[in-house]
Structures are given as structure tokens and as C-alpha cells.
């Protein structure tokens, strides 16, 4: 019991600290590396929640795919101008306070509702032993229509990215 709490505290601390670093760093490459650290810590949380398939997907797709795309774009755009200019916009105090108020509201809601949340008893909530197999079964039987729509979405995104990156349309 204690070990799972220690692991959770470790991953959660790493995730939150590097997320704060990502938002506050001046150098954008440092921000990208901090976001990669957050995503890796989140992958650890997924593993703790018995989502082995999502753990691998998170590392391969998020860290290996999306973040590499971000780093590529950071290399392509000019760093020096944005490095020397002001990093935060004019409404930063209003925006920060409003976001914190939003967070406090949700903390209050969680605190209010945590006693009344009806979950199945813990001995019934057992994950299937073969995670990848179970996810595949659900994805290709119950969720086949959203799966196909997601493939159309990816096609649209691919065409959109190609059109955007072309020199002249």
C-alpha cells in the first residue's frame, strides 16, 4: 500500500514541477524538454493505473511523435526574437487569477462530491489481465464507429498540414 503512494507522489511531483517549468521558462527548447518530462511522468501514472497499452502509446506517440514535431518547428522558427522579448502578455495577472479561481472551484467541487461518488466496490473493479487485448477488443467491437471517424479526422489533419506547409496554394 505504501509503495503505491510513494510512486504516485513521485510521479505527481515530477509532473507538476516540470509543468510549472514549462509555462515559466524563457527558452522555448527548455519548455519543450519540460513538457516531455511531464508526459513521461504521466506515462508512469498510466502504468500505475494498469494501462500498459496507454503507457507505451504515451511514450511512443506523444514523446516520440508529437514532441519531436514541436522541436522541429522550434528549430524552424526564429528563436532570437522571441527570446529577447517580453514573455507574458498584458492580461497575465487577470488571466492567472481567473485560472486559479477556476482551479479552486473544481477543488471545492471534488471536496464536496468525493463522499457521494458511487464507485463499484474495489474487489469488483479488477482490470482485465491482458490490457492490450482488452483495449483492442473494445476498440474494434464497441467503438468501431468512433475509430473510423478518428481515421477520417487524421486524414483531414494530414491534408490540412500539407496545405498549410506548402509554399503557395
Amino acid at each position, binding site marked *: 500500500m505504501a509503495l*503505491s*503512494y510513494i510512486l*504516485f507522489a513521485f510521479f*505527481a511531483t515530477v509532473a*507538476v514541477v516540470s*509543468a510549472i517549468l*514549462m*509555462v515559466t521558462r524563457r527558452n*522555448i527548447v527548455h519548455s519543450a524538454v519540460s*513538457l516531455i518530462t*511531464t508526459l513521461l511522468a*504521466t506515462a508512469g*501514472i*498510466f502504468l500505475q*493505473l*494498469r*494501462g500498459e497499452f*496507454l503507457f507505451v*502509446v*504515451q511514450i511512443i*506517440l*506523444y514523446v516520440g511523435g*508529437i514532441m519531436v514535431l*514541436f522541436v522541429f*518547428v522550434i528549430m*524552424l522558427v*526564429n528563436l532570437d526574437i*522571441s527570446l529577447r*522579448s517580453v*514573455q*507574458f*502578455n*498584458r492580461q497575465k495577472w487577470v*488571466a*492567472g487569477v*481567473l*485560472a*486559479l479561481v477556476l*482551479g479552486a472551484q*473544481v477543488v471545492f467541487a*471534488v471536496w464536496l462530491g*468525493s463522499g457521494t*461518488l458511487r*464507485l*463499484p466496490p474495489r474487489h469488483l*473493479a479488477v*482490470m482485465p489481465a491482458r*490490457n492490450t487485448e482488452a*483495449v483492442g477488443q*473494445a*476498440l474494434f467491437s*464497441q*467503438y468501431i464507429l468512433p475509430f473510423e471517424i478518428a481515421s477520417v479526422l*487524421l486524414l*483531414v*489533419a494530414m491534408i*490540412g*498540414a500539407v496545405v*498549410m*506547409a506548402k509554399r503557395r496554394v
Partner: protein
Amino acid sequence: MPGNAMIAPDYYLLLSLALFTIGVIGVLTRRNVIIMLMSIELILNAVNINLMAFSRYYGTVDGQVFAIFVITDAAAEAAVGLGIILAFFRNRETVLADEMDMLKW
């Protein structure tokens, strides 16, 4: 079985909420569009933690399937968003959000 030692779901909700709030602050306060996009990725990631936690507490994989769809959306959004940033940078030589005011006069 060590995997059955379960933490109360509130902890996962609060972790997810912390990441979400940090992401919202990043979107609202930074001037650099690339960091705003990365903050949106952070927000989507926080949503995934919630989905995974409830999937675990109900003992089904439905939440994990939805997390896969969220990751798909994140990939599509990153591809199109970064394409727009590149196209804009090629025309205006800037990545700062408050200098993107071509429609304003």
C-alpha cells in the same frame, strides 16, 4: 497482488486538476504561440489522467479507449496548429500571439 493497492480517486483528480490549471495559465498568459500549443497538449494530457483513473476504478477499458481518441485529437491538433504557425511565420516573421492582428485595423 501489488497492483490492487488502490489510491483514492481524489488524488488523481487533484493531480489532473493541477496540470489542467497550469495549462490554462500557460494558454492565457504566454505570448509565444508554440508554448500556447504546448499548454493545450498539457490540458489534453490532464484529461487523459482523469479518463485513466475512472477506467481503473470501474474496472473497464472504456476510459482507456477514450484516452486513445484524445491522443489522436492531440496529434491532429498539433499537426495542423504547427502547420499554421509555420505558414504564419513565413509571412510575418513572428510567433508572438499579440502581433497576429492582421484582421484588426
